[in-house]
């Protein structure tokens, strides 16, 4: 179990700044939801943490160890990343797609241990029936599960998810979030997800990081961060926020007119 610290991370595309000295922390087994409007820098932050994009400034520390010092392969053993758009250009079985998650550990030949780990993970996510099917025949929810399985067989300390629910119907949104939550607990993995749905974030996350214009504007418990005032400020939307059966509910009312 680890603590991930993001310290003063800045990134810009060409000369357009996307992240301006962002700092945040994710504790052991913590599930953090990063919220914010389109273009707030949520995805960029995740990509900087996994060094898919190289931050121009700042450092990312995993239990005090600077991730910049790790090779790509070493990094892949520590951090699992699930991108927003999930696809495979060529046909590949679900089993082989998940097996790719063992890439950081294998050079060419796969061992019995690799096979066992893939099978155990498919089993844990209840998708072993799909093992020999082509990945391109998967539905959106199944595809999400396959990519989660792939990230898990990397045996990472930290899991990053970019909009894991954006292409799913409400039933699959709930299922995927439940899956992630239970894995985080079971495996002791810390998780950061970029997400648009305020209600899902409020319900599942331990901590909310609210971003706007490349900066973090609020951090804390869902009930502390998701308020009518912050929603109005960041999303430019009038909203009702109320609690029912211990859960936070956000009802958007109308867009605020901007000059």
């Amino acid at each position: 179990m680890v603590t991930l610290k993001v310290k003063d991370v800045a990134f810009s595309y060409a000369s357009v700044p996307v992240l301006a000295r962002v700092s945040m922390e994710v504790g052991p087994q913590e599930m953090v939801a990063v919220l914010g409007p389109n273009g707030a820098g949520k995805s960029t932050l995740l990509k900087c943490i996994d060094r898919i994009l190289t931050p121009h400034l700042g450092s990312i520390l995993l239990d005090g160890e600077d991730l910049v010092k790790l090779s790509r392969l070493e990094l892949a053993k520590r951090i699992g990343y699930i991108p927003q758009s999930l696809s495979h250009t060529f046909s590949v079985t679900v089993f082989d797609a998940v097996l790719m998650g063992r890439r950081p550990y294998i050079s060419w030949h796969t061992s019995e241990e690799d096979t066992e780990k893939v099978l155990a993970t498919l089993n844990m996510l209840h998708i072993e029936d799909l093992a020999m099917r082509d990945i391109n025949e998967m539905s959106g929810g199944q595809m999400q599960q396959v990519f989660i399985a792939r990230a898990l067989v990397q045996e990472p300390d930290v899991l990053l998810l970019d909009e894991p629910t954006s292409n799913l119907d409400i039933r699959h949104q709930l299922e995927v979030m439940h899956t992630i939550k239970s894995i985080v607990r079971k495996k002791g993995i810390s998780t950061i997800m970029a997400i648009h749905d305020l209600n899902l974030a409020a319900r599942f996350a331990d901590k909310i990081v609210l971003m706007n214009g490349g900066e973090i504007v609020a951090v804390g418990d869902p009930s502390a961060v998701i308020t009518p005032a912050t929603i109005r400020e960041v999303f430019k939307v009038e909203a009702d926020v109320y609690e029912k059966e211990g859960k936070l509910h956000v009802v958007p009312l109308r867009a605020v007119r901007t000059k």
Partner: protein
Amino acid sequence: MPPSESRSGESGKSEEIKAQYKKFIGRKLLFIFSSLLLIVLIAGFAATLGSYQISVTEVYAIILHGILHDPATTAELVVWNLRLPPILMGILAGIGLAIAGTTMQAVVRNPLASPYTLGIASAAGFGAALAIILGKGLATGQYLIIANAFVFAVLSAFVIYGLSRHRGATPETMILAGIALMYLFSAMTGILQYFGEQQAVAEVVFWMFGSLGRASWDKLPFVAAILALCVPLLMLKAWDLNTLGAGDESAKSLGVNVDQTRALCFVLASFMTAGVICFTGTIGFIGLVSPHICRMVIGGDNRYLLPASGLFGAVILLSADTIARRIIAPTVIPVGLVTAFMGVPLFLFLILKRKREYW
């Protein structure tokens, strides 16, 4: 998504998947060995074709005998000196072009890519035209054309490599650079042909058709050496090529150095293509069709797909060459024309049969 009911029989299910997976790998190996067997059979048959009559069994006997003894009889001389060189060149060219095609498809992440997608054929063609029409080049005698074709093909590959180093090795950068080079070299070849003498121009056109007829024992070691260098290196990169299929971001997060993998594999594929087509001229469709067929049969894992498509490419090329020799015998038509005729219906069939959209 299956609900979490019966948790009994879990290990049974795992065993079942393992058995299925083993069977799947068995199928891949079977395909590879079948292709190998087909190569031997077609090569044996191809060696019987020609004005001097030899039976298939004689051919195999002569080949086995000739491994340890110098050819002495007429039959032995015909098989070893006349018939085997083009057959062996066909096998090597088939392997090289098909593996280069498989690699290029993975590198630019597009199943419609071929070894020629990035303009290498035009570059080789220009090099050959320069040698044939102006007699200018980097070597003398029969090697003038070969060396020129090879050097210009490799040169174009390195221009694309340089550009992608500068701009990031994305498929888009590489394809755009390839298109630009293709037009440049085609235009320059056009100028040479416009001002060239009629006979030389005809020779250029003939060179570009692609043929195994120019093969000889002294040329085979070059092609064999290039394949022996490139194929193992690409095989080592098979896992990384697999991960590219999941997209650059996924590949990076799995620990793959995407830019480096893409650049290296592209250079190896280009080197191999250049090594083949400088001796044969451009033989089309092998590098496009073979990976397609193999992917349909054994799936997309490059650890198996690379060797399978290579061997199957040899099967296709040898078959095409056999047809090219037989169809209006004794006249032999260039194999490059036959592969195009074979490739088109095959390709249309694949398009009509395909289960899903590629884009």
